[in-house]
């Protein structure tokens, strides 16, 4: 099969959907003439023109709101945040307008919009450019939250997100844009709300999403060399969450480690743990463990980042703990 980069997969998804539906447009900082800060939208201005691939000033609150308004009037915007760190400037329009509109209008105004961009750390970028927002947005009813981990999933999920009639938060990573993977030429869609078992195993369930999935798969390899067969579940959607797939896996393996880049308090991991203990309490052979980012703003120094972030060693250690193999 053909191999393309993550950024190309995203671009293809947007291009295909824009060819299919004239109501879809892309708006954000540097998306048009600069071809995207991370070159995701390269060539799109040329193909679709400045009516549909639109550069904005650095005015996130304004253009997020303009997107929501356009969606109220029947368009299907894709709003790119250069990174989700900057979505904080716009979060009022995402949460108070996009997420709540359908409900507070008694079902009259649905908001078919995609807010997309990278989330989480991308190296030594300091505290204000490294935050994870998956759990922030997943907390909010009215939104859907999607976090692909490879080019194939990214393309299929983004196409679905653009066709979705509700607001979708679509989170990527600067560190994944260059990742390569198999993506077929033919069209396909991946449903929102379904997890994907990235690796089958019987000894322990490792759950994660987004770029941490790739770290978990590395950890699975390391564990295999020690005779531990981990099952790796990529949630892919964080709202809604595919609890069934997760609970089924834990019922099989009886052990679970959750890996998440965000801060620990009120993270997705806590939510998953709740549902597992509720639905599979009698199946658990060990307390569920999580590996998360540290409970501090991410500093710049490499030594502190090393201490802060989840890594293969920390994941392997947690797995061995739930297997009582230390």
């Amino acid at each position, binding site marked *: 099969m053909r191999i393309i980069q993550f950024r190309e997969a995203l671009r293809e998804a947007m291009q295909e959907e824009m060819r299919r539906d004239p109501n879809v447009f892309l708006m954000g900082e540097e998306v048009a003439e600069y071809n995207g800060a991370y070159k995701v939208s390269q060539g799109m201005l040329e193909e679709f023109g400045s009516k549909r691939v639109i550069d904005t*000033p*650095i005015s996130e609150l304004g253009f997020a709101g303009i997107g929501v308004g356009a969606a109220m009037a029947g368009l299907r915007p894709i709003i790119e945040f250069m990174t989700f760190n*900057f979505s904080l400037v716009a979060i009022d329009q995402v949460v108070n307008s996009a997420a709540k509109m359908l409900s507070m209008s008694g079902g009259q105004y649905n908001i078919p919009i995609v807010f997309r961009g990278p989330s989480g750390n991308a190296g*030594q970028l300091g505290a204000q450019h490294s935050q994870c927002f998956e759990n922030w947005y997943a907390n909010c009813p009215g939104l859907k939250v999607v976090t692909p981990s490879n080019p194939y999933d990214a393309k299929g999920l983004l196409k679905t997100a653009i066709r979705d009639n509700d607001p979708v938060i679509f989170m990527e990573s600067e560190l994944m844009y260059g990742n390569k993977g198999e993506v077929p030429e033919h069209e396909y869609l991946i449903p929102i709300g379904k997890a994907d078992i990235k690796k089958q195993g019987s000894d322990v369930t490792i759950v994660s999403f987004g770029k941490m999935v790739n770290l978990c798969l590395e950890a699975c390899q390391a564990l295999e060399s020690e005779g531990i067969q981990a099952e790796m579940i990529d949630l892919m959607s964080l709202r809604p969450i595919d609890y069934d797939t997760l609970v089924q896996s834990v019922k099989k393996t009886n052990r679970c480690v959750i890996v998440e880049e965000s801060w620990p308090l009120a993270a997705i991991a806590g939510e998953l743990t709740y549902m597992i203990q509720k639905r599979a309490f009698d199946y658990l052979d060990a307390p569920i463990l999580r590996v998360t980012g540290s409970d501090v703003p991410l*500093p710049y120094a*490499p030594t502190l980042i090393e*201490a802060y972030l989840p890594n293969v060693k920390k994941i392997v250690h947690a797995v061995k703990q739930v297997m009582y193999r230390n």
Partner: protein
Amino acid sequence: MAKKNVKIETYSKEVTLRWYHQMMLMRRFEEKAGQLYGQQKIRGFCHLYIGQEAVAAGVESAITPEDYVITAYRDHGQALARGVSARACMAELYGKITGCSKGKGGSMHFFSKEHNFLGGHGIVGGQIPLGAGVAFAIKYREEKKVCICFFGDGAARQGALHEAFNMAMMWKLPVVFICENNLYAMGTSVERSSNVTDIWKIGLAYDMPAEPVNGMNVIEVHEATTKAVQRAKNGEGPTLLEIKTYRYRGHSMSDPAKYRTKEELEKYKELDPIANIKSYILENQLAKVEEIEAIDEEIKTIIADCVDFAEKSPYPDPSELYNDVYAEPNYPFIME
């Protein structure tokens, strides 16, 4: 409002040489930082100040160490102008514990309380209300100080600026808003970000005194800022200065700057602010060539020394991770 001051005085040897020294230090520091970035000694985002030196230097000479300065992520020049040592700045770029933010901030987040330097801020426009807030505190405590609040042309399009301008003006806060208009916000030229391309005119919407200033000339920056600072300290409220300048390098280290022409860059290099003050000094016979060369030599030593210092300094120990997050000493972090 846009009219130029008539220059009546010639600036002294001391003042002009200090400007030269400061600007040359910024220039060489940034050139070195650029090199070291190439060697991956410095990581992350790194935004150089080369070309804009007259802004930081001309503002600094218009204020006192007791006054405050706050800026965005393009903050190396302002920190050096405030008197933060080249050692502390370079060590911060390296992420070493001896840096001005203990290696926790990096290029974008230089801070120095000792120098009333309130930081380097990474969210475009975020520091604009902060600057007004510092001025609020000055007024509240009835001090005779000013806060200088820098931001870029791109930041002028953030909502936070408009809200802050309105309140700062309504409450007559002692703040000088300085837009360093270097013509681009990443790849977006000022013309492509608004119909209002004279950014100083934004002040007029709030009845805020405002004017454009030639940022390639340190004397013009100094004079315009001095007036604005006086106004603030006299209780007359804020001023907006749009200081027109230019960055010679890309937006950050990863930007090839294909959105502008070589001719444009060359045109601005001919207006170089350092060459400018150097010829002013020589033409007015304020100092001899040898004295200027001695400054160049001194700066070479400072740069070599700060790199050596940064190289030899240790990284923060991993145990530093939980320090400096809360003012409370024994905050119960989640550790499992």
